């Protein structure tokens, strides 16, 4: 099994490398034949995403944007794309991986004869890498680039990470840190007893559940994605869902941001629409916090946070997403929040009792199957 993996990785690397060389050769041909060099990059914008109703996921459309060299607006990006392409080829050749930040530093230098840097900040570099992913139709791990670890996991499951067996019941207070690459060649599921996954928005809430041994009592896996879950976290959730058939239950804030996180987990994001088939979990469920909870749980006025103008605008946008548009439950939910005029964080349940969320709220709702999907 391990041998096969190595083989397929080598094959995959050769494929990626070939794609990079072909890209560079195309530019070189244009240059030498006197044509204007230009890159063609699939657009990662909302207008170029298509809602696949049947699959319940967001997919990337066919639109591409030209990135000509001889245009002031795109000249620098053109150069940056080529620099990253060269860096990645080196990484693959050396059979090494690098963080996003590492790639940024590798390509960052002063342009010869000037005082200008090729890249000034990592914020400039990361989108260029995403451009390359879509332009080469290669995933980030295929480019040997990874993001920082983000998010944690505990629960009744045992996995193998790069050959090390990890028992997620014995992860102490911190949990298993979710790596950015969780493909089957890196992580395999060895043994799973859990019946579902409880995914919470952030570490503080996750700590509450972990401390109260929620996963033990309810036989589940407990994860968080530190806000908007990174690709590693989403990919792992999807694998757990598809390979082990575990349902995903989300506990997120009652605000447009929480709704959006749910939307991303469920149908994928706009900028990573090309990876939706690997990331989206159409059957993910939204358990709370719900707009009705303020009354239902008898919360104190102090937990209310006024909706800002921006929140209201955002909420309306989300309500208009095609996958929410025809969904009565969600329309009601968003409208209820707007009618409330305030938002609530998961932590607001602490005002009832420190363990109210883990011992009363979530168990009751799970039992009642009171969720949105």
């Amino acid at each position, binding site marked *: 099994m391990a041998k096969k993996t190595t083989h397929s990785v080598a094959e995959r690397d050769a494929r990626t490398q070939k794609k*990079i*060389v072909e*890209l*560079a*050769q195309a*530019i*070189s041909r244009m*240059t*030498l034949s*006197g044509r*204007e*060099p230009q890159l063609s990059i699939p657009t990662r914008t909302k207008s170029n995403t298509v809602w696949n109703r049947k699959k319940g996921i967001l997919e990337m459309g066919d639109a591409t944007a030209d990135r000509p*060299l*001889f245009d*002031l607006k795109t*000249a*620098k990006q*053109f*150069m940056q794309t*080529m*620099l990253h*392409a*060269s860096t990645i*080829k*080196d990484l693959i050749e050396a059979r090494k991986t690098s963080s996003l930040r590492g790639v940024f530093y590798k390509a960052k230098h002063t*342009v*010869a*004869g*000037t005082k*200008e840097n*090729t890249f000034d900040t990592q914020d400039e570099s990361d989108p260029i890498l995403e451009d390359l992913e879509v332009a080469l139709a290669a995933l980030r791990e295929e480019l040997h680039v990874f993001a920082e670890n983000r998010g944690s996991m505990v629960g009744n499951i045992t996995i193998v990470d790069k050959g090390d067996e990890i028992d997620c019941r014995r992860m102490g207070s911190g949990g298993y840190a979710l790596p950015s690459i969780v493909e089957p060649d890196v992580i395999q599921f060895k043994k799973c007893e859990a019946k579902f996954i409880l995914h919470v928005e952030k570490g503080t809430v996750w700590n509450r559940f972990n401390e109260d041994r929620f996963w033990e009592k309810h036989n589940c896996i407990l994860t968080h994605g530190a806000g908007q879950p990174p690709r590693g976290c989403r990919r792992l959730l999807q694998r757990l869902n598809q390979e082990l058939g575990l349902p995903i239950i989300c506990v997120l804030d009652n605000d447009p941001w929480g709704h959006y996180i749910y939307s991303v987990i469920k149908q994928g994001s706009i900028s990573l629409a090309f990876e939706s088939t690997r990331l989206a979990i159409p059957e993910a469920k939204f358990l709370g916090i719900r707009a009705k909870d303020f009354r239902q749980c008898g919360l104190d006025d102090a937990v209310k946070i006024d909706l800002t103008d921006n929140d209201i605008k955002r909420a309306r946008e989300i309500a208009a997403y095609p996958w929410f548009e025809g969904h009565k439950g969600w329309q009601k939910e968003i409208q209820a929040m707007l009618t409330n005029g305030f938002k609530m964080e998961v932590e607001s349940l602490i005002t009832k009792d420190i363990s109210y969320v883990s011992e009363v709220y979530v168990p009751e709702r799970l039992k009642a199957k009171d969720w949105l999907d």
Partner: protein
Amino acid sequence: MDAVSETAAKRRKGATAEEMATRQRDISVSEFFAKNRHLLGFDNPRKALLTAVKEAVDNSLDACEEAGILPEIAVIIEDLQPDRPATAKSSRYRLTVVDNGPGIVRKQVENIFGRLLYGSKFHRLKMSRGQQGIGISAAGMYGLITTGRPMVIHTKPKAGSAAHHIELAMNTKTNRAEVTTDDEVKDFPPARLSAITPGTRALVAEGGFLSPETFRTGTSVSIELEGRYQRGRGSVDEFLELTAIANPHARITFVPPSRDAGADDDASVLAHAEASAATKATATTETGGVVIYPRGVQELPPETREIQPHPKGIELGILLQMLKDYEATEKGSLFTFLQERFCRVSSATAAQMCKAADATSRTRAGDVEAPQAEKLFQFFQDVKLPPPPTDCLAPIGVRQLLAGLLKGVSAEFYAASSRSAEVYRGRPFQIEAAIAFGGDLPADEPARVIRFANRVPLLFQQSACSSFKAVLETGWKNYNLQQPRGSLPVGPLVIMLHMASVWVPFTSESKEAIADYDEIRKEMKLALMECGRKLGTYLNKRAKMRREGERRDVFERYIGEISKAIGAITGEDAKRLYDALHAQAKRKTAVADQQLDEDGKVVREQEESDDDGVLIVPSAMGVAEDAAVLEPVVAAPAPKARTPAASPPKAARPAPAAAKPAAAKKPAAAAPPAVRPKPAAAAKPPIPRRPSQDGPTLF
């Protein structure tokens, strides 16, 4: 006296009507102006000196032009109290203005110099500098009041014979001259003047000052007066500078007094050229303290015709007076009166007019009753008439405007436009505008507006002047200039406006500002917009070139990195890729190159230039680089680009050499190798050559 005031007088036991009557008498016009001398421009010593110069020079230019002589004018100011304390507010000066005009016949001398409101120009509708016949005699009167000294006049109306030497003082009570000296001298121009300073002596030796050959006829006027000589705005220097601009056909020499009253360093008002061998012929120069404003064009302004008033331009009272005058002199019919005393009245129109006034064509002008005249007047307003003829106007002309500005203002871009004649209150007028931009002009100050009426510079009351308002109302932002709301545009800009008319409507007798008639302001704005558009086009093109230059910079910066990256991926020769990319970058930004070839060339005048009224001095551009209105330049101009500009930009100016009329026609023609008539290249200035043609060195 009516009953009411009589009763009032009795009640207060005051003067009776009879007593008052003994004190009521004529006021002489000269008495009036002696008391109200500020009305004529003699409000303070500095302005008084300027006004005196202005009146004398205006008269000289008018006289020369009317006689068809290319004007040659010398202005000499002697300081008669050179030892006065430094704190003295004013001093006594002797101002002498000598011209090579036709001279004045002996019997007219007293009238011209010794009476206010006496002259040839008031009663006619003809374009001239003077209008009222107040100027020079008022200057003499002012001198007499402040110093008690008479005016000294030398005039030589006949080339072969002796000159008259007359000294006269005005009697302000009678508005008549009292002659104190009257003899004939051989000495003209007065030899004393030639030897006033070492500078004049040197010039005389070269034949460049008061040479008897040039001054075969002419007039010299000397006035002693209390004044103050100080350079700067509103000074004699500025006046002469501007006069030279508007009168490129005149040659003016100026001998200033030895002492400047103010420690004003800002000697030159406009950034004018420094003296150098190459520019001597065209630009203002100074030798041994004598300032020479050379002649820029060799032709006199076209001769103008005198016109009769236009029916639409007169008032009812004037019409009545004209009828009376006609009866007194001609005793003719209304029909002939209308045709003879007005312009644009054909016999058919005259017949119509007679009918409208309930008169026949044989009705005598003297028999027209007031109600009839009123009907006639009303008819004037309603009838359709062609506008007055315009051959009474002598605009400066686009070419001459450019020549004038070129010699007076050191800039990079010049544009001029001359509108066709229009009419206000039945009087024809014509507006001309010109602008100079860039070069040595200060970049971040409000534009300088220079105003002229019938070629006479207007130095005061700028904000009251129609032309100033026209400048403010023009949207300079449309032409890529900055313009704070309701203010002058800001930038290295000189704006010149000229109004030519048979009767310029001044706001006061001192002729400092043009009255704000809508028709006039509208024309001014149109003329300014025309110039503005030309400037806007030029600035756009210049900015575009700069942008292209910057673009190439950007591309050149990146293609090194790109070719290395591609080379690293594909294993190709990076140098070969670089060369191919570089060739493409060059092609893509070819506009930036077009002017690089022009480096070191002097003036390029485009073929359309004559119609276009545009003149570009690329060599002045190096200086304008810092101009605030323009986009910042990324690449610093290389030393190489500086070299041609380093030999003073002015040296590179075209030389409409005084001896060559052709040069005047096309200023650039004097420097043939520099001329590159290239219509397509219109208004494309060079940009500084970049440090390296090959971009950053990479290999």
